[in-house]
């Protein structure tokens, strides 16, 4: 029973972070039609900025805000200077086929990830450093047992829930949310409707950048910060997004929690070595039984 509760609480806190990563991926997918593998590179970069600010005596919350803003700015810059020129078909013969047009930005995002990691290594050196949490990291005590669920985990879960609600409302209830979806789904019709698709895509990148910075800030207190720490989180977060259905914010969060639970229960009841096997098994099962993901819509997956 105690093992069960422990597994459940670890699964919840981990799941919340994977959910946030998946949410960031879904935002760029829905707003720009791109799977952005550079996302956790962006998150790592802005977490370093926060870490530097804290080291220089600024408060956690100033650093927190700075990380979100720099995450948004970095996302927007990557779109304007790399993704937008790449998607401009006049400039590139490469993009004449539909499949290449879908693949090129994904490959570029992998390149950006590598570049950001190298740049962070140059600026901040590659050794690991710690990163503070804004709340206590001691487990709650239930019936004399200390659970691996802390005040910080409560903070994480609340932030993720809030982000999910805001994202869902934003996509379905606001004009800019509609413009983002239209832009990702059919650029030509979006343009003919008067939507400034370039600007809209940049906004998606900025919002996603802020969301992934949030994920970076929330995961590093429990893992440590180095240029490569977030690679694993990205892999699990990506799997979560696919499991939930790439175009559904609710699905992304659901996928995040499912994977959090799977990882946690495998760790507690089996061995941590089997975690990757379990992740792959979940991914494979979803792809075979329901390729569009649990809550994904039919035409969502093109890449």
């Amino acid at each position: 029973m105690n093992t069960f509760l422990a597994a459940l609480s670890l699964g919840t806190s981990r799941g919340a972070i994977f959910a946030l990563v998946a949410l960031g991926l879904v935002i760029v997918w829905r707003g720009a039609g791109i799977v952005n593998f550079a996302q956790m590179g962006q998150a790592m970069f802005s977490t370093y900025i926060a870490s530097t600010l804290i080291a220089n005596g600024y408060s956690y919350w100033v650093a927190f805000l700075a990380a979100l803003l720099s995450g948004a700015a970095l996302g927007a810059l990557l779109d304007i200077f790399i993704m937008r020129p790449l998607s401009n078909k006049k400039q590139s013969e490469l993009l004449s086929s539909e499949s290449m047009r879908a693949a090129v930005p994904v490959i570029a995002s992998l390149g950006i990830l590598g570049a950001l990691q190298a740049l962070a290594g140059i600026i901040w050196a590659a050794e690991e450093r710690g990163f503070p949490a804004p709340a206590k990291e001691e487990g709650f005590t239930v019936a004399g047992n200390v659970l691996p669920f802390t005040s910080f985990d409560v903070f994480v879960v609340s932030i993720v829930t809030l982000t999910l609600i805001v994202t869902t409302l934003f996509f379905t209830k606001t004009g800019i949310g509609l413009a983002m979806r239209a832009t990702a789904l059919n650029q030509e019709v979006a343009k003919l409707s008067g939507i400034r698709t370039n600007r809209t895509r940049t906004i998606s990148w900025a919002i996603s950048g802020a969301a992934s910075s949030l994920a970076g800030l929330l995961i590093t207190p429990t893992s440590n910060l180095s240029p490569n720490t977030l690679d694993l989180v990205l892999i699990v977060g990506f799997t979560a997004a696919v499991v939930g259905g790439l175009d559904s914010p609710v699905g992304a969060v659901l996928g995040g929690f499912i994977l959090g639970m799977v990882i946690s229960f495998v760790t507690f009841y089996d061995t941590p070595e089997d975690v990757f096997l379990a992740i792959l098994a979940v991914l494979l099962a979803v792809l075979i039984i329901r390729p569009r993901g649990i809550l994904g819509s039919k035409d969502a997956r093109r890449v």
Partner: protein
Amino acid sequence: MLKIDNLVTRFGSVVAIDGISMQAQESKITTVIGANGAGKSTLLRTISGLEHPSSGSITWKGQSIVGMRPENIVRLGIAHVPEGHAVISELSVEENISMGSLFRRRKFKSDITPAIDEMYALFPRLKERRKQLAGTLSGGERQMLAISRALVSRPQLLLLDEPSLGLAPLVVEQIIDSVNTLCRSTGLSVLLVEQNANTALGVADHGVLLALGKVVADRPASELKADAKLRAAYLGY
């Protein structure tokens, strides 16, 4: 109103439009007819900014619109309904329509809801299905939706590309009738591209016949319709 002069549009080495000069008159329906590959769709796509011409001019109310982006051309009052019931299947009917009015949100805030309601009045079937995804609609309903998406931006010129494509004659008649009524009652100008020349010439004021990217005839629609020789030579019946 819209004046096209010596327009040339190429795709690589293929010349799709080869020196077209024509006009769309104010509050009139001008139809562009011709066989497949005559350059009709390319002409509309060049006007709305989706394709860029290699030479020639397009003048809208005295202003050149060559080289402008589609999202800015629609702001000037030219709305394009491209070929093939261009709606976004993954969005609801309501979302598809309001998408067309997003850019008017700030300047014409009080006119957004009335404009959308007018579309539902024009095509009541869309109102019944407004929460459904556009992908679940029939072909005719999708075409109505595509037209509504364009009209909700309150254009002065509607570019309509093959609205009859793949639709039953009765539905075609209904859609053409709606557009005709709208033109006559509100003064909307229409540039109608059709392969189905009889339908188009039946409703239009003026007709332009294209063949292989060139204008072969530019006359009042009734004259064009009566010219059996021309029809036999270029349209095959």
